[in-house]
């Protein structure tokens, strides 16, 4: 049995559902020695801003149980350097590139998106409205459905590229965020970004991270991510979803697809093993075959839930 791994997120068609997550995959080129970039469904590059950004002062990361906290502060080379120095090489290597973008203001986002323009070497734009580690911008948009809708509307009118909005899990109602983004013109959603957390150096009574709080990632957040993918899939049956959060194994990939994701992004696991995303592509085909799944898209949203019953007092 040959397995059809292809998947579609609206206009964005991927050869397989294994992508890599922004902030954990550099500009892709750093991984070229450890896997074949062209074998991946897509790569989402480090969040690009209008100008080069030097990021937060250290310490920026610490390990936690089953994961890590980071507050990098969106350090990146800037969109101009990315387009001139990174994108040509990514295209040469056959990578399907998702350009992750961010800004402090609506104008900043629009400027980055306009700089990318209709460049065919970019397959989609992913809007980061969910970074918890910057003083301005970032999550300020992601935590407020009205601000999010206004931002997505402006970006939508500034580009014809497929538009993916990466949502923050640091909200009470993820469906409200999802609806706001979709109603404002998002073609697809990415969920989730990191979960705000705090780690303490007890002897010093100081936070382990210079920014005080950081974004929690890794296997520790996988149940939260699965729950949010499932909630959004249930509320918005048609919207394409990239699911991510603590994926390490092919079983985790399949769990996200079953919960409702059309594709997944591998994140923190890339730090632990830079070859993992490439390996998962082959493992997914084998998993599908052993489970009698002919098309990977047949798995999407197939979670069988029981009806919830009202609690009964005796």
């Amino acid at each position, binding site marked *: 049995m040959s397995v059809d791994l292809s998947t579609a997120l609206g206009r964005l068609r991927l050869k397989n559902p294994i992508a890599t997550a922004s902030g*954990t*995959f550099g500009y892709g080129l750093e991984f070229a020695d450890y896997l074949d970039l062209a074998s991946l469904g897509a790569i989402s590059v480090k969040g690009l801003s209008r100008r080069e950004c*030097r990021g937060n002062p250290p310490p920026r990361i610490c390990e*936690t*149980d*089953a*994961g*890590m906290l980071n507050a990098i502060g969106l350090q990146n080379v800037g969109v101009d350097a990315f387009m001139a120095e990174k994108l040509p090489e990514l295209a040469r290597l056959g990578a399907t590139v998702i350009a992750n973008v961010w800004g402090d203001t609506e104008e900043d986002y629009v400027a980055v998106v306009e700089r990318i323009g209709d460049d065919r070497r970019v397959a989609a734009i992913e809007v980061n409205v969910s970074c918890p580690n910057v003083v301005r911008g970032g999550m300020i948009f992601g935590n407020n459905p009205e601000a999010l809708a206004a931002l997505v509307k402006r970006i939508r009118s500034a580009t014809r590229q497929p538009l993916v909005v990466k949502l923050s899990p640091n909200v009470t109602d993820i469906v409200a965020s999802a609806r706001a983004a979709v109603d404002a013109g998002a073609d697809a959603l990415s969920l989730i970004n990191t979960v705000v957390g705090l780690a303490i150096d007890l002897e010093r009574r100081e936070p382990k991270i210079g920014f005080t709080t950081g974004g929690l990632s*890794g296997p520790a957040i996988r149940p939260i991510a699965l729950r949010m993918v499932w909630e959004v899939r249930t509320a918005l049956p048609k919207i394409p979803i990239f699911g991510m959060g603590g994926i390490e194994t092919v079983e985790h990939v399949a769990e996200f697809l079953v919960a409702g994701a059309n594709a997944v992004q591998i994140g923190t696991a890339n730090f632990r093993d*830079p070859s993992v995303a490439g390996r998962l592509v082959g493992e997914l085909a084998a998993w599908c075959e052993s489970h009698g799944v002919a098309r990977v898209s047949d798995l999407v949203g197939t979670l069988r839930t029981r009806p919830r019953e009202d609690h009964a007092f005796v």
Partner: protein
Amino acid sequence: MAVNESLRVLKTIHYDEQHYSLFLSAGAIGARTKPGHFAMIQVGEGLRPYLRRAFSIADVTKVAGVPALEFVVKIAGVGTAALARFAEGTPLGVLGPLGVPFPIDDLLPSDRVAVVAGGIGLAPLVLLARTFAARGIAADLFYGGRNENDVLKRGDFERFLGPHRCRYATDDGSLGRKGRVTDLLAQALQGGARYRRVYACGPVPMFRTLARVLRDADLEGSFAMESEMACGFGVCLGCVVPMADGRFATICKEGPCVPPTAIDWARL
């Protein structure tokens, strides 16, 4: 180019309760390793510790005739404690060699250099000393620790560099001079010693002092820096240090071996 491969545990030598040497099969990493390179080692399959750990490659050697990488480790947390307990034959994921090694290609046989180690900072300096011996470059070792147990692998250093070129300092005077290793070097400089370059690895307070000593003596240095890192190859951007030019630079990619003049010591 670095390699991501699975290496087997060949042997572990415990020096005391805190310090040990871990020997892994050399794989493809061994032949590519230069002094100052490091590797990221996966400490088991579980979720705690979750991330790989960065270790200097202390030596490229042999264990019972089998090519081996040696890592000299001080137990400082869950990762280094777990790594001490693997049985012979256990496969561990290793990525390496990584980073910018010590600059040594420009040295001439007539050059004299100094090697300064603080505590577990000896780790990247063993292969460096071996390389100096092989090239016939005269190197003076200045090695300090809190006590005698902190000063490891003296036999190797004395074999590579000559016992008369190895000087020690300890906080409690249990080995060598009582005091700081940076004072040993400063005294040697006052006594007229001149070095083409000073290679060093140790804790940040030692680096700070040493940077001043080298600046005052107008000597070139190369420091092998340490920083907590998640990936080891320039992607997570977690291991940055403040640079003199105002940037934050990754220790994994722009280091670990950097000239001390490149670091903004006041902001570190």
